[in-house]
């Protein structure tokens, strides 16, 4: 139990949200990315968060410690690509079809807002912990 674990918890939370924001940015940027082959189409990515308890495991420990966040993996959404008839497109196949990534932009936007808010919560926690430690350092002065 120390300030160090507090900093680590807040830090991992902010890191996890940054990864999430990264995937959102990537998904939104590639929303209109086309490909000639459905297998080559960009797939929306989503991070998987997990709580790691103070014993370093995914299961709860007996002690009174907290839990930090870890990004276990970033998984593709596995959605079917969208087929569009665009014979003028240089990527079009023999039948004139182009494949686009199936990305729900509204979903990504709300995900982005949620990630931003959660990141701000992490910053808030860090600020609070900082002022707690500063107060402790000033103890006994004057």
């Amino acid at each position: 139990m120390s300030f160090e674990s507090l900093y680590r918890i807040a830090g991992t939370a902010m890191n996890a949200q940054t990864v999430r924001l990264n995937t959102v940015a990537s998904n939104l940027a590639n929303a209109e990315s086309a490909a000639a082959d459905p297998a080559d189409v960009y797939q929306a990515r989503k991070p998987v968060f997990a709580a790691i308890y103070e014993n370093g495991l995914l299961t709860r420990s007996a002690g009174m410690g907290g839990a930090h966040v870890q990004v276990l993996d970033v998984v593709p959404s596995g959605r079917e690509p969208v087929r569009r008839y665009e014979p003028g497109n240089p990527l079009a196949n023999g039948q004139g079809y182009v494949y686009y990534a199936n990305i729900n932009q509204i979903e990504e936007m709300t995900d982005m807002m949620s990630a931003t808010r959660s990141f701000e919560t992490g910053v808030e926690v860090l600020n609070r912990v900082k002022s707690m430690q500063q107060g402790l350092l000033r103890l006994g002065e004057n």
Partner: protein
Amino acid sequence: MSIRIEESLGVHVRALELRMQRSEILSANLANEDTPGFQARDIDFASEMRQLEGSAFSTLGRSADAGLQYRLPMQPSLDGNTVELAVEQAAFSRNAMDFQTSLTFLSMKFQGLKKAIEGR
């Protein structure tokens, strides 16, 4: 008559320690706000404090599964996560303020001791 510094600081050292422990638990709740299946936890400060009274210093957190309890969500979410941001943020803020209060009390104790030592 002699002054025992540990005794004269009273309950505040332990309160401070418990406050810090609680802030760790609450910050873990806030950190796992988006983790599916995470269950928010907290301690009952008053009962923990009562338990600590009379015990030696720094026995905190060593005892097996001390009074760690699960938070009852007002509105459970589908992914099994029971963290409610507003509730946790309020609890964390309150806890941080109480930490500062304990610090202020301790600092006042130190001032009193200093006066006694210097004989003013």
